[in-house]
């Protein structure tokens, strides 16, 4: 019974923690510009992250190490520092987008300009990481994130074209605006397959003291939790296809996003959207900040742990403090949160191999995993999707930037 409850909690928190500003914005842009045609990119991204999360949980449970630990040990200092540099640069932009997302939610709800909310939301996020435990951050905020189910309710209520949705699950070439099509596809993949997610997951498995006995729970949580989470992204895309696409509207501002639920559910839909955006972005802010701090502390051999007194793990605490501050400054300096979201998701996709390929090598290392190394399916799925995302990103990002 205890295992069933653990699995249920894990699935529920995976669902509640899945959506964040990247997945909401990119799925909405996909639906607004191309209707149901990019549903395949959401599915591909979800499948890939489900595999990656299962792998990272398995790695931690079998080896007793986190991914950053093993990256440093197996690949050496220079390779580890390169991975850290790339991951930090990209993830701090994503973090800026998430902090901006929380501020936008408050702007929508109060009418007060988002620049007045950036600093308070950054301080709130820092305070939660400083004072909260890992369990509170992992479970508490994610349970609140179940409010994002409003997107599914609205999508079903809006009367989607299920036939077109089914056809959209099959990848095909675009019939118009090919550069923008592939750019949005890359952004969707980057929003789904964020390396900070599996650094956070493996560290969490160690914080929760997972062992080989947790492999079954891990499979259920990663597979079904992420599957349902991807379902939420598809719901956002469907809403945009129903509400924005017929009117020829694209997502230019966050107000366009709030119209997704408001148009179908009325005023309650607006307030639920505000809550969903704010909580989803806050949860992602906490995860990214911790994830980068884990990446540095573990690879450099410092004391670390969210459950440790933050005054004692001073370098670890200082790391996430500085990271949150830098990300907040990027938004305060005038970066538009939506543009920041778009470019950070696309850069995440383009830089995927830097994070994913070394991790895949580790997942085939029997010194760490014993008999639980990857099978050919897991290797192939992750490798193909990551390399594809990178190739598409490298091609489409410059073209998109040149075009705009």
């Amino acid at each position, binding site marked *: 019974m205890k295992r069933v409850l653990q699995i249920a909690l894990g699935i529920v928190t995976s669902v509640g923690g899945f959506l964040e500003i990247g997945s909401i914005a990119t799925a909405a842009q996909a639906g607004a510009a191309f209707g149901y045609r990019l549903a395949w990119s959401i599915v591909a991204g979800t499948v890939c992250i489900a595999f990656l999360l299962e792998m990272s949980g398995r790695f931690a449970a079998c080896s007793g190490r986190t991914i950053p630990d093993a990256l440093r040990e197996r690949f050496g200092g220079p390779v580890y520092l390169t991975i850290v540099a790339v991951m930090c640069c990209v993830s701090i932009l994503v973090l800026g987008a998430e902090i901006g997302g929380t501020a936008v939610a408050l702007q929508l709800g109060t009418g007060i300009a988002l620049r007045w909310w950036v600093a308070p939301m950054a301080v709130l996020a820092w305070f939660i990481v400083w004072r909260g435990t890992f369990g509170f951050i992992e479970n508490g905020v994610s349970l609140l994130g179940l409010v994002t189910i409003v997107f599914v309710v609205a999508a079903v209520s809006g009367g989607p074209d299920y036939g077109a949705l089914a056809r959209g699950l099959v990848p095909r070439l675009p019939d118009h605006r090919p550069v923008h099509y592939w750019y949005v596809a890359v952004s969707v993949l980057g929003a789904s397959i964020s390396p900070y997610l599996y650094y956070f997951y493996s560290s969490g498995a160690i914080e929760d003291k997972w062992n080989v006995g947790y492999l079954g729970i891990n499979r259920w949580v990663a597979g079904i939790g992420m599957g349902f989470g991807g379902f939420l992204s598809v719901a956002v895309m469907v809403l945009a296809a129903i509400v924005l696409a017929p009117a020829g509207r694209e997502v230019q501002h966050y107000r366009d996003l709030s119209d997704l639920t408001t148009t179908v559910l009325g005023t309650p839909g607006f307030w639920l959207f505000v809550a969903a955006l704010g909580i989803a972005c806050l949860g992602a802010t906490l995860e990214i900040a911790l994830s980068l701090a884990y990446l540095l502390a573990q690879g450099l051999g410092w004391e670390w742990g969210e459950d440790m007194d933050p005054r*004692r793990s001073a*370098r670890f605490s200082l790391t996430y403090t500085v990271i949150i501050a830098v990300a907040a400054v990027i938004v305060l300096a005038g970066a538009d949160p939506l543009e920041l979201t778009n470019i950070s998701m696309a850069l995440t996709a383009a830089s995927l191999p830097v994070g994913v390929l070394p991790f895949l090598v580790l997942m085939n290392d029997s010194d760490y995993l014993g008999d639980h190394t990857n099978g050919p399916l897991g290797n192939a799925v992750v490798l193909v999707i990551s390399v594809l995302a990178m190739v598409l990103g490298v091609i489409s990002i410059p073209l998109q930037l040149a075009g705009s």
Partner: protein
Amino acid sequence: MHLAADVLDEQLVDVKHQKAGRIDGVIVSTRPGQPPRVIAIEVSPVTLVARVNWRLARWLGRLDARITGRRTPFRIAWDALRYRDRSFQFDGDVDATPINAVEHWLRTHVTGWPANE
């Protein structure tokens, strides 16, 4: 045992099993007519960065010297190390070494962690 795969970049802990950084460098001593002998490890961000870029390491070294007062990276004699529980353990207390100098400074001046804990 292999130096690069099994020693370099491994976790270091002290006698109380507190984390003490990672093995950032390994020093061997060459002697004419005899095999090179492993004599010490280095634990220092300067040593780590020097593996990537000399100029950056020199700059970091000046900064490290200002904070820790040391002009050379901290070394632990090879004979003082034991391999235990998937990490290298040295015979000493990390708080009595410069390894945690920055950590101690931050605890004292920033986070307010009590010195006697």
